[in-house]
């Protein structure tokens, strides 16, 4: 019973980290890229210039660090929890990214977009509750 509670606690904690760091990483990348400005690549030097600006942006590095935290949490939780349990939980990241966008980046999220995000979460949840393995592996 005690180990079962521990398993639930660590799974919940890791999923919480995933749902926090994944969308936060995307929000920080967005902030960094908005600071750089609209990307238009016409020549090879243009591409090098943009890549240089990306590499010197602290916010983008924070975003990548946050996405790495997400990825490590994802790998760790998958080492003991079922993919079919973890994947539906990750659906909430779509809702969280809209929240980060609204509160951190002051983006205008229309009611239609909120409804779309909600339906996406439900859709991913439904996908997550199907059997995770359909090919002939033992």
């Amino acid at each position: 019973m005690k180990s079962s509670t521990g398993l639930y606690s660590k799974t919940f904690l890791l999923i919480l980290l995933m749902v926090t760091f994944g969308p936060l990483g995307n929000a920080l990348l967005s902030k960094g890229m908005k600071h750089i400005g609209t990307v238009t690549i016409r020549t090879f030097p243009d591409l090098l210039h943009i890549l240089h600006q990306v590499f010197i942006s602290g916010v983008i590095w924070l975003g990548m660090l946050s996405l790495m935290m997400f990825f490590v949490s994802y790998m760790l939780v998958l080492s003991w929890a079922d993919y079919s349990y973890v994947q539906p939980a990750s659906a909430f990241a779509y809702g969280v990214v809209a929240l980060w966008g609204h509160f951190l980046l002051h983006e205008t999220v229309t009611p239609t977009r909120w409804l779309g995000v909600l339906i996406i979460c439900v859709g991913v949840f439904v996908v997550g509750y199907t059997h995770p393995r359909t090919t002939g592996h033992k």
Partner: protein
Amino acid sequence: MLWEILLLLMIVIAGTGGELCISRTMKTVGEVRDFSPINLFRVIVRAMHVGWMWIGLLLSIVAFLALLGALSIENVSFVVPVTAISYAAGTLGGKIFLGERVSLQRWAGVALVCIGVTLVFLGRK
């Protein structure tokens, strides 16, 4: 607008293609049962010997760069939900490319994702 749609398509197609290639690689490598660091290192080395892994990594880099490009133009609350359409692309790719059997329930979930993405698209200011 055209550039924006092109970037979103690149995120979905290159991202899904990359995941399918990595998934195919991991099916070749075999199921990982031992999660010790030394074994995980061996798994990575084995995966790096599979050609699909390199194609998968290249496509993932392309998808990441396209994501950066899209985020420079559009809001994150628009770009990330729209990329959920990759669930539909992934399901279709899994069926065609990996021979997965997709249940009616999974198709229903994918249909909901598509409806949601359409609403996010329509909900642009």
